């Protein structure tokens, strides 16, 4: 089971967005896609999830069930948190009582309080809403989970707590992950492998293994080392010295 990009290029109109992408995500891997804003990260994720077809090359997925956590939560405003978390299971035909029970268990594990379960998304905080979106993805028991900067809009402390949750949950289920970010420390904290994209049109400029950092200092040291790598530094310079 794996996901493979083979010679993938894509342009929106005349504007090339991705160029010559070769990438394989194997079962159980946690791959972080790191790249500057606008380099085509979201586009790559949409290709990986099948929401978009490549212009050139092929994307093949051997995974049985992929689930996505988007940059914004994309919850259904007319349902409470519990039903939102259960939406994926409802789509799979899981009975109401059973899916609500399973959704409740996952939401509690992710740190929602009993009182939050009956709240509509408009009454949830940003962090709560992203937890519900994460729960909705976990609940379908995917073998591949795609995450698009899910915590970019959150404050740093909360972001770290949610990163810990993501790591705990993916380690627990062994699900393969493709996680997009432009935050270098987030990459070193989560990834078993880091793939660095250049500025638009996105090309892969570095691809290396990473041991997920266990604490903040370690994550920042690894981030500093990453930025000093010659291939990454060259890409940053080529992008006009723009930081990630």
């Amino acid at each position, binding site marked *: 089971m794996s996901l493979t990009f083979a010679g993938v290029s894509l342009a929106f109109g005349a504007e090339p967005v991705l160029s010559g992408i070769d990438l394989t995500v194997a079962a159980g891997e946690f791959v972080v896609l790191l790249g500057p804003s606008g380099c085509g990260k979201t586009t790559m994720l949409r290709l990986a*999830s099948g*929401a978009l077809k490549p212009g050139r090359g092929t994307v093949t997925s051997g995974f049985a069930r*992929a*689930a*996505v956590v*988007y940059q*914004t939560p*994309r919850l*259904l*405003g*007319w*349902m409470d948190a519990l039903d939102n978390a259960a*939406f*994926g299971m*409802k*789509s*799979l*035909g899981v009975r109401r009582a059973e899916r609500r029970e399973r959704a409740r268990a996952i939401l509690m594990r992710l740190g929602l309080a009993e009182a939050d379960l009956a709240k*509509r998304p*408009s009454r949830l905080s940003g962090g709560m809403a992203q937890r519900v979106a994460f729960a*909705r993805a976990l609940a*379908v028991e995917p073998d591949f989970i795609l995450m698009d900067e899910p915590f970019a809009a959150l404050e740093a402390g909360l972001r770290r707590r949610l990163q810990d949750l993501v790591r705990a949950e993916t380690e627990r289920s062994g699900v393969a992950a493709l996680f997009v970010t432009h935050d270098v420390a987030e990459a070193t904290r989560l990834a078993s492998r880091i793939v660095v994209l250049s500025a638009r049109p996105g090309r892969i400029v570095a691809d290396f293994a990473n041991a997920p950092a266990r604490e903040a200092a370690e994550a920042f040291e690894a981030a500093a080392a990453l930025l000093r790598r010659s291939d990454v530094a060259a890409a940053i310079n080529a992008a006009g010295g723009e930081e990630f």
Partner: protein
Amino acid sequence: MGAAERALWSLSGLVVLALAWAGGHAAYGPFVLPRPDETVATAFDLVGSGAAGAAVLATAGQALLGWAIGLGIGLALAFPAGFLAPLGLAARPVATLLVAMPPVAWIVLALIWFGPGGGADAFTVAVTVAPMLFGAALQGLASRDPALDEMAAQFRAPPLVRLTDVIAPQLLSHLAPAAGAALGFSWKVCVMAEVMASGAGIGGQLAIARAHLDLPATFAWLLILVALALLSDTLLLWPLRRRTAAAR
């Protein structure tokens, strides 16, 4: 503002209206405006004695039937037009054209096609509100959030789940106000058709009252009509509005 204070303000508008009416009566006399209390008493008399029953039932039947048919047709056509781009493009100008048709034109046509008393009232209502509701439903479908569609497709939601959980709630928030406006329209158009064509229902009674220059009766029937419109709006659309308000 508290609930009591809000209710008081809502009521104050009606009080001002009643005072203006009473003032008009005092200024211009009973042949222009009948006394408000006399009119209300006449209306209660008509309803209480059972004399209004048949007319109210006839008008309500035709107005609500026409509204329901118009809603059904509008929705049934909005879905194919909303999901098949060429159909949507073809349907839009036709709907605009039909919305621009004056209801009176339909009344004349219905008279020619069905003759008086052949369901022409409900037909006129249905054909007047259907394009309004079609347009609103189409708008509702077009303005839904594509990000939610992508999410639902990603979770492989079957068509029925997409309809009930993703599409319908977004559609309703557009459709509910239009359905309310169309319902108010239904009563007016129905009574107009009755006055001009069928001579049945409240419209028929209005025509008789006019012929007798019976101003209190004319106003009493209008009062009954307005009360019916408000009642139907409350009963049929309040649950819908509450749902859409909660969704936001």
